[in-house]
């Protein structure tokens, strides 16, 4: 039995390694076809995949429907931009700082928000994100409505992030690292406890688990990864924009998670890829692509209610004999 699990996880890791190798080969492939522009686009997709993955950890594994995840995404971006404004351009300083700021914020926000349940939790996390948003647009020193431009991309040791493929690889590595961490966490005790809390919170409390502490820690881990994604997105567009903090951003991230598959490790990433690609492709065919996207999302709600990851999984499962 144990060996079966072992074999399965080996197969999974091999598959993941394969996918990442293919993704790593994307920039030279695009260059070969003269489509350099899409390297930058692909990097953006990866960054959103990262932040959606981090939200999925909070929503899918922690069972907390957070409607303010953009706060941490934006906070990471602003941290990098503000530090660069102060003359600190090294990624080795500013990116960990971005994560640290997100973590601090998440502690505060989570501590207050986790007192509430259900819809109230959704709304209070939204309220905190909106606070940050309005704070950002009314702070003249942070560029107000316009956001804060980065003079250049962060310094990254010998690597030149201005070089689009390099930046892409850094984004890919960040995503890979975070996915690996989350994979370990969800399969370790901490992850199991989280799962059980999502299943039955009062019982876990009754078994002596400090439920609030677990949830807060889960919230903070998600925020930390969102902070890293924020550092990346600020570098990508060389801009920390208040739009990163807006509620529509939180909403979009949540949509990515739901579309991809709540609680599936790769759900967030799948959702981000599907949504951003759909945007790009649909926009190519019709100026009214929003409506088309809306219809597709409705279809997902009613036809693939557990998200695309689960739906695809279901298709495969039907193909095989056992459950």
């Amino acid at each position, binding site marked *: 039995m144990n060996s079966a699990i072992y074999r399965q996880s080996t197969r999974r890791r091999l598959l993941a390694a394969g996918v990442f190798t293919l993704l790593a080969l994307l920039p030279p492939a695009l260059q070969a076809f003269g489509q350099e522009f899409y390297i930058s686009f692909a990097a953006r997709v990866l960054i959103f995949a990262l932040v959606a993955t981090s939200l999925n950890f909070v929503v899918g594994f922690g069972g907390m429907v957070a409607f303010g995840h953009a706060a941490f995404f934006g906070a990471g971006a602003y941290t990098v931009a503000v530090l660069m404004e102060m003359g600190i351009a090294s990624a080795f300083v500013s990116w960990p700082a971005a994560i640290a700021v997100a973590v601090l914020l998440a502690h505060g926000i989570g501590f207050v928000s986790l007192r509430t349940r259900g819809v109230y939790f959704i709304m209070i996390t939204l309220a905190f994100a909106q606070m940050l948003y309005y704070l950002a647009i009314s702070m003249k020193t942070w560029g107000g409505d316009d956001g804060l431009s980065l003079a250049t991309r962060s310094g990254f040791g010998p690597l030149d992030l201005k070089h689009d493929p390099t930046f892409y690889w850094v984004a890919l590595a960040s995503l890979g690292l975070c996915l690996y961490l989350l994979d370990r966490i969800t399969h370790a005790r*901490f992850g199991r406890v989280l799962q059980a809390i999502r299943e039955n919170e009062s019982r876990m409390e*009754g078994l002596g688990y400090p439920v609030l502490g677990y949830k807060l820690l889960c919230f903070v881990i998600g925020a930390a990864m969102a902070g890293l994604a924020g550092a990346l997105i600020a570098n990508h567009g060389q801009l920390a924009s208040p739009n990163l903090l807006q509620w529509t951003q939180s909403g979009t991230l949540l949509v990515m998670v739901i579309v991809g598959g709540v609680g599936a490790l790769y759900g967030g990433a799948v959702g981000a890829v599907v949504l951003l690609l759909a945007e790009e492709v649909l926009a190519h065919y019709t100026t009214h692509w929003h409506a088309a996207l809306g219809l597709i999302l409705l279809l997902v709600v009613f036809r693939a209610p557990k998200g695309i990851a689960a739906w695809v999984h279901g298709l495969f499962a039907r193909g095989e004999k056992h459950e």
Partner: protein
Amino acid sequence: MSESLLVIDGVSRHFGGVTALAEVSFSVAAGEVHALIGPNGAGKTTLIHQISGAQRPDAGRIVFSGEDLTALPMHTRVQRGMARSWQITNVFNRLTLLDNVVLAVKGRQRDWGSGFRFWQPVDDEQALIDEARGWLAEVGLGGRERTLAGSLAHGEQRQLEVVLALATKPKLLLLDEPMAGTGPEESERMVALIGKLARHVTILLVEHDMDAVFRLADRISVLVGGRLVCTGLPDEVRAHPEVRRAYLGEAA
């Protein structure tokens, strides 16, 4: 009577304008089976909530093993050795029986870090699993480790409910209507189980089944309309005029 394990001292609780508990005081001695009875809406479950920490009383204290727990959250009280079962079955329906009990065993490992292991996969923690199997066997659910809790029969779920509380190795077990909704046969099995447990652990039992109560309880407390009417030996309670009027009369 030996020393008190649990002291409920002047506990009151209001919901809006309604008084659910009015200065309830009694104590549970170490080693006894103490039953809490009363008609519907008397405040029994509310009291269990105050004791277990699911709610905070508006006034009064909860003292356990000499320590005032009133301000502590539920999980801390569990770590101090107080476990509860729920009136409405409250188990992990989508997990197997084994996983249910493993969680309970793990929760008992009192350091706050027990679940904070981020790296090692859990599937190979043999000691945990062995202990969980033992607990299941003790209540007659052995051999069904891989069954999903949600697919158990109602009586079996009630048993699992008790096992989960038990696996935290408590000093005091709060059982909130363990026989609720069970048939006569299942009730009988539950009475036997509680009787067996009573040898190792102090029990505060809330129950409607008077037969079971009088068979199991060493002492009985009676709540009516949020007030404590009396505490005493079963025969004293049976004879108490106010109890007869307010409660037994109604039940008969």
